[in-house]
């Protein structure tokens, strides 16, 4: 599983910039004689935030400076030290320094380490005005070096060689080194320096200084950024031992070199993102939807033009349609976030839970880059968490049981996301024991839930969504109380989606969530049934035809099958499902649209085809409610409303018998 760190960096840079701006502003407003404690607190917090974030990402220069600033600010706000104008100046220059450092990290330029060191030294001297200052720093434990245990250490250009692989031995020993500004502000005891050389002595030092270099070289276990100040003056070709010897000299040299860092008048990193109110984005999306509709109305009108104008008009209309489609896609993508934003919390969940339950479980994540609307992303977290926990708690057996069953003692949970047509499909699969059909039926009987005579597996699995339903032998605090699954289903449905279950006893179960992409434009086939027009999403249509009478076979009752090229397709008359009066009741007089979904296929019988067009899906649930068989509505060129058919749920209404006979 890989997480693209870049997106987190971007947010960090952006927020840090804001923090720095805030600090600067507050520092400028600060009344030295009578400093406002709230302002001091805010400045402190801003520095603290930057420190924390920079620690996580390994932006050590930031960490070192902000750490000292934070200590000094803390003293001041606690009243242990009085703030002076010189201190404010120092803080301001530190902020400038930080901005420059941030810029360098952002653009990938080399840092001016001597400047960094200079600044931190100044800050430290001021802080040490209070005798307890120095020791306090020493003991202070650096937080923020929380290595992402799940992150791939290689292949991130921005990792600057700071990401440690937790398993490598280097990290533990390197910790004291990282702790406080790389030992610069201590007396550089020999022990500290020694720890430098412990990690990966075999690797060329070159790698460690390549902050912004080729990712392949950034797999390092030593944090030696500080030492790279040597690189400014000397070529870095030394071995670890040499470095150790060089360290003491660093203390003395920076005093000589003047800070190369200029103040913030020089190039500032433009923030490449803007914070926008979600409501504004939504409004934009709505307006674009309206444009699409108006544009299609105009195209419709244009068709009735004649003469020379008609052709010119048509050309322009086509251009407009292209532009509109592009705007639509661009606007939709504003709200789209990769699904990994939701998925990235699960490695931790799986890890904690599996260790808590004493099971061994591997989590595999696929398709994290699949994009999903922001609103959906947030709402998916709860249902997904519940399903994952269920898989771990109830699905995957303990290592012993698995061995008995001849399975790999380590269970696997797969989280997968993919885009399918106008939908997002997210699935959670496990290779555990699967759902227990008998127990579910028994539980259903206990709860007086009506079940048909010999229910199909799909029907049985859906029973677990009943409120209060749980077949867990014991209720744990993880799950089993029976309040989860119905909430999951309701959450999914409220997003306009649905959830399917597949399970094989002893082999595992898969929960699949289908969600519509919001503001979808759907390419659809318009069909007529009686007076009404319906839209069938093109993606599911195999072909349409006017069947010959001889190809229509009737089964017992009213069910009919269509014979097409040696296959039988169950016929579903749309007028029956929609309770309308059709123009034709004989299939061979109307049109059969052959529809295929993942699992089912059937022939939808309609009066006729009206045409193919692109439609904007409008929600029925917004002002009304969910209707079985209908995915949404749209507004046609003439302003009337057409309903968009939900082929998946239509497929389920096809008679069971027919389904068995014609199963894909």
């Amino acid at each position: 599983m890989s997480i693209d760190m870049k997106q987190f960096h971007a947010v960090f840079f952006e927020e840090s910039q804001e923090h720095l701006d805030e600090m600067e502003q507050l520092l400028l407003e600060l009344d030295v004689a009578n400093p406002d404690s709230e302002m001091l607190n805010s400045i402190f917090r801003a520095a603290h935030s930057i420190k924390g974030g920079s620690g996580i990402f390994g932006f050590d220069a930031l960490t070192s400076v902000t750490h000292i600033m934070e200590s000094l600010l803390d003293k001041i706000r606690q009243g242990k030290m009085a703030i002076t104008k010189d201190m404010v100046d120092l803080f301001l220059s530190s902020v400038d320094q930080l901005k420059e450092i941030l810029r360098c990290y952002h653009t990938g330029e080399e840092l001016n380490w001597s400047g960094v060191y200079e600044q931190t030294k100044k800050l430290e001297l001021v802080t040490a005005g209070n005798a307890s200052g120095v020791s306090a720093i020493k003991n202070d434990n650096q937080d923020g070096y929380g290595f992402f245990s799940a992150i791939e250490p290689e292949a991130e250009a921005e990792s600057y060689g700071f990401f440690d692989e937790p398993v490598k031995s280097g990290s533990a020993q390197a910790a004291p080194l990282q702790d406080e500004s790389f030992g610069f502000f201590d007396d550089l005891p020999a022990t500290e320096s020694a720890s430098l050389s412990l990690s990966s002595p075999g690797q060329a030092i070159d790698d460690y200084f390549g902050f912004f270099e080729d990712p392949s070289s950034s797999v390092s276990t030593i944090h030696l950024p500080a030492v790279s100040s040597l690189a400014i003056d000397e070529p870095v070709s030394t071995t670890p031992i040499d470095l150790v010897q060089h360290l003491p000299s660093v203390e003395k040299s920076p005093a000589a070199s003047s800070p190369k860092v200029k103040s913030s008048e020089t190039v500032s990193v433009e923030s490449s993102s803007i914070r926008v109110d979600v409501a504004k984005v939504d409004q934009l999306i709505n307006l674009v939807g309206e444009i699409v509709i108006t544009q299609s109305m105009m195209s419709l009108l244009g068709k009735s033009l004649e003469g020379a104008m008609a052709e010119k008009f048509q050309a322009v209309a086509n251009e407009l349609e292209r532009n509109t489609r592009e705007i639509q896609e661009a606007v939709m993508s504003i709200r789209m976030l990769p699904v990994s934003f939701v998925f990235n919390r699960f490695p931790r969940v799986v890890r904690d839970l599996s260790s808590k339950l004493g099971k061994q479980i591997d989590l595999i994540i696929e398709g994290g880059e699949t994009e999903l609307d922001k609103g959906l992303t947030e709402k998916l977290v709860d249902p997904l968490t519940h399903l994952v926990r269920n898989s771990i708690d109830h699905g995957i057996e303990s290592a012993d049981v698995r061995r008995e069953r001849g399975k790999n003692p380590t269970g696997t949970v797969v989280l997968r996301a993919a885009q399918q047509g106008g939908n997002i499909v997210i699935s959670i699969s496990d290779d555990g024991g699967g759902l227990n059909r008998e127990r579910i039926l028994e539980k259903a009987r206990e709860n007086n839930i009506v079940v048909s005579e010999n229910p199909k597996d799909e029907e049985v699995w859906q029973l677990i969504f009943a409120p209060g339903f749980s077949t867990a032998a014991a209720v744990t605090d993880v799950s089993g109380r029976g309040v989860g699954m119905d909430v999951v289903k309701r959450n999914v449905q409220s997003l306009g989606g649905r959830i399917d279950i597949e399970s094989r006893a002893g082999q595992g179960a898969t929960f699949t969530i289908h969600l519509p992409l919001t503001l979808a434009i759907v390419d659809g086939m318009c069909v007529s049934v009686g007076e009404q027009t319906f839209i069938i999403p093109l993606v599911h249509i195999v072909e349409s035809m006017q069947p010959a009478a001889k190809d229509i076979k009737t089964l017992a009752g009213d069910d009919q099958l269509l014979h097409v090229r040696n296959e039988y397709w169950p016929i579903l008359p749309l007028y029956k499902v929609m309770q309308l009066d059709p123009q034709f009741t004989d299939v061979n007089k109307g049109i059969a649209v052959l529809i295929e979904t993942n699992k089912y296929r059937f022939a939808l019988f309609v009066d006729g085809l009206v045409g193919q067009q692109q439609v904007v899906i409008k929600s029925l649930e917004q002002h009304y409610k969910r209707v079985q068989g209908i995915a949404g509505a749209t507004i046609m060129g003439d302003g009337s409303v057409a309903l968009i058919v939900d082929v998946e749920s239509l497929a389920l209404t096809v008679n069971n018998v027919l389904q068995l006979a014609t199963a894909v």
Partner: protein
Amino acid sequence: MAADAQEFLTFTLGDEHYALDILTVKEIRGYESVTKIANAPPFIKGVINLRGDIVPIVDLRIKFNVGNVTYDEFTIVIVLHIRSRIVGIVVDGVSDVVSLDKEQLRPPPDFGVAFNSRYLLGLATVNEQMIILVDINELISSEELGLFDSPEATGTSA
């Protein structure tokens, strides 16, 4: 719910005069062709396109069995804003907007009125005409009309 002086829009269903809170009214239009929704109760006529929103249309005359259910050029649809949703109700006609305050309200009778009294705010007399004040919020969001999915509904799977 009646504050000091509230304004009500009066409308007719059959022979009776009713009124509802004017603040819930979004607009008033004529009755145009409606797209039917399958498996809906007969009083839910279907949906219309209201400048981009898909809005359900309810015929109260059918639901409460009052008046003549006809659709002609005089048939009115009052489009309402109820709890962040938009719904249209078909009525026989609309008349004035009247201002009423608490003192003018009388308790609704338990019988003889089309609506269940829980949907009524009371009775008032304006110009010797008896007007039945409807709690339109209650009525439209009621389970009886079943216009909206109730939060506790455990829908059957698709």
